[in-house]
């Protein structure tokens, strides 16, 4: 068993890398193809022991992106191009045989999902779910496993009685904590958290976030944290990526992004956050997110962009490093931003593709 020592915090090696990842919904009826480009060329990486946040409006492709890096691809969703690479596997995620991919799950790669009400099997007691998910990875006897689960819950300050409960007998916050316990039981290298706090009320949300932060630090896991709620990102994530219409438009250290948003979309998102003492309603962005089956040419944001220029209508801006650890894909942000080739996004230099 490989344990990542806590001392390796802020290790700069990459746990996850994607390169030009494209995941499309493809439907064929009577020879007519229809393509929805939900993830369209995303290159990014997550460093060891960091929490990487992804933000964006609903239907911007966040969920599809997560599905793609989690290998939760079911038709009609397809990986069209690109690579997903984890440090704990030799080859790319999609080059791995299905059986091996399955063996990695939960041991190295686990998830915390939105909607704690519905992510636990309603007719199964919690301890059964723990068994289903983790038993085969722990290589322990039944009694030792049970002991280990209890010890783990204790560590997370959860009462052991919940193991005998059905999911509906627990409160929403408790269920989400159970999910976190479940996701961290095997001390995986990587955790994907998809809107883990969305349905919770503010007080519980705060506790749960603290717990995520704590366990992540304690076990030294890396994490992708997806939520549309920017305040959550501000509290939890180390780095933040902003997605719009299937593409990453800005990425940087969370504090940098908040203090110095360079993409007009990011700037808009941050500006529309409610602030204490506000009396005026926030200005809304005109228009709606594009139809991904037929996205606009050029920069996908240009129809709604207050700064749109001629070039934006024709060319797709490449995600360009404009400051330390801060990438932006906007022609208006800097002249350094060049049109990307064949719609490909991101600067190759910033990536060290491990093959």
């Amino acid at each position, binding site marked *: 068993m490989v344990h990542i020592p806590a001392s390796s915090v802020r290790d700069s090696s990459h746990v996850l890398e994607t390169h030009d990842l494209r995941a499309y919904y493809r*439907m064929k009826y009577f020879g007519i193809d229809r393509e929805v480009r939900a993830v369209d060329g995303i290159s990014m990486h997550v460093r060891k022991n960091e929490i990487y946040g992804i933000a964006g409006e609903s239907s911007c492709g966040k*969920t599809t992106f997560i599905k793609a890096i989690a290998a939760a691809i079911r038709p009609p969703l397809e990986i069209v191009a690109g690579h997903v690479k984890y440090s704990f596997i030799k080859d790319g995620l999609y080059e791995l045989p299905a059986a091996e991919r399955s063996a990695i799950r939960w041991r190295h790669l686990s998830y915390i999902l939105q909607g704690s*009400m519905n992510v636990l099997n309603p007719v199964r007691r919690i301890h059964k779910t723990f068994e289903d998910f983790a038993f085969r990875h722990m290589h322990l006897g039944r009694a030792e496993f049970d002991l280990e689960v209890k010890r783990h819950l204790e560590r997370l300050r959860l009462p052991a009685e919940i193991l005998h409960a059905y999911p509906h007998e627990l409160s929403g916050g408790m269920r989400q904590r159970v999910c976190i316990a479940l996701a961290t039981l095997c001390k995986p290298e990587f955790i994907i958290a998809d809107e883990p706090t969305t349905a919770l009320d503010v007080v519980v949300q705060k506790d749960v976030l603290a717990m995520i932060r704590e366990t992540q630090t304690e076990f030294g896991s890396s994490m992708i944290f997806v939520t549309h709620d920017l305040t959550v990102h501000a509290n939890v994530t180390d780095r933040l990526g902003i997605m719009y219409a299937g593409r990453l438009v800005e990425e940087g250290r969370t504090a940098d992004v908040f203090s110095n948003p360079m993409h007009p979309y990011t700037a808009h998102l941050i500006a529309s956050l409610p602030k204490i003492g506000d009396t005026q309603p926030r200005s809304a962005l005109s228009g709606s997110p594009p139809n991904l089956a037929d996205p606009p040419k050029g920069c996908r944001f240009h129809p709604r962009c207050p700064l749109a220029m001629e070039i934006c209508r024709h060319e797709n801006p490449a995600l360009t490093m404009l400051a330390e650890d801060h990438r932006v894909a906007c022609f208006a942000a800097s002249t350094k931003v060049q049109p990307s080739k064949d719609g490909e996004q991101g600067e190759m230099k910033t990536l060290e593709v491990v093959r």
Partner: protein
Amino acid sequence: MIAVFRDLFRYNGEFAIGFMIMVIILGIAAASFFSPYEPIDSYLVAMDAPPSAEYVFGTNSRGQDIFWQLTFAIRNTLAFGFIVALISRILSLAIGLVSGYVGGAVDRVLMSINDTFIVIPLFPLLVLLYFVLRDDMTWFVLALVMAGLGWAYDARLIRSVMISLRTREFTNTSVFSGMSMPRIVTQEHLPYVLPIVFSTFMNNMNWSIGLEVTLAVLGFTDVDTPTIGGMIFWANQHSAMVSGIWWWYFFPTLFVTLTFIGLFLLSISMNEYIDPRSRLDRMGNS
């Protein structure tokens, strides 16, 4: 609306096939209005002719052209099933919704009535009504009677869905966000309820047409009005199966089956269109 239809037709194979089947079925039903023969007249053409160019579906032992008989039968049977299903859906939806939403004493009273309808044995009731109503027991009256008796089970189903929807989190969210109840029902809940209504609509049609055939086989329907059951009734009167006149049974059966396949395909494609989850999957707006 037209755009929705076009999209469904283009992108949804089930819809396209189901739609085409139903066009054919309805076309055949509509053809009855152009029939050269009165539906109840007999001995008009040669007897027992197998399917041929002259008589596409053959003729029966009563000297009737099975194709034209079938046009009437499909028209009447479809109308019959449709009326039963429509009226009983309205009843079950209304009672299920009210019971599920209002709850309490209203729910208990409605469900007691509902359960009484579930337990009353249908078959002797229908036969006795047939005895009492006699000539007045036309297929339309039969349809009304069966609609009056066929809603209870589905009302219970809709009620239980309603109860579960009422307790779902999004309902609370919507309530707190100040949405009015009718709006919550139509916008948030209907997408969950409609697929159930559609599929019970189908099952109900299937049930009522099956029961019509059962009653006809036992001779308890108005045999002067051609229906699928009525055709089977007359075929039995002439021992058509052992006489080798298989086409007298085959074509009615084939078209009943096709009708249901058509309706089934339409209903699943409609469900996919209505159900937010599968629509998202299909249209890929995520």
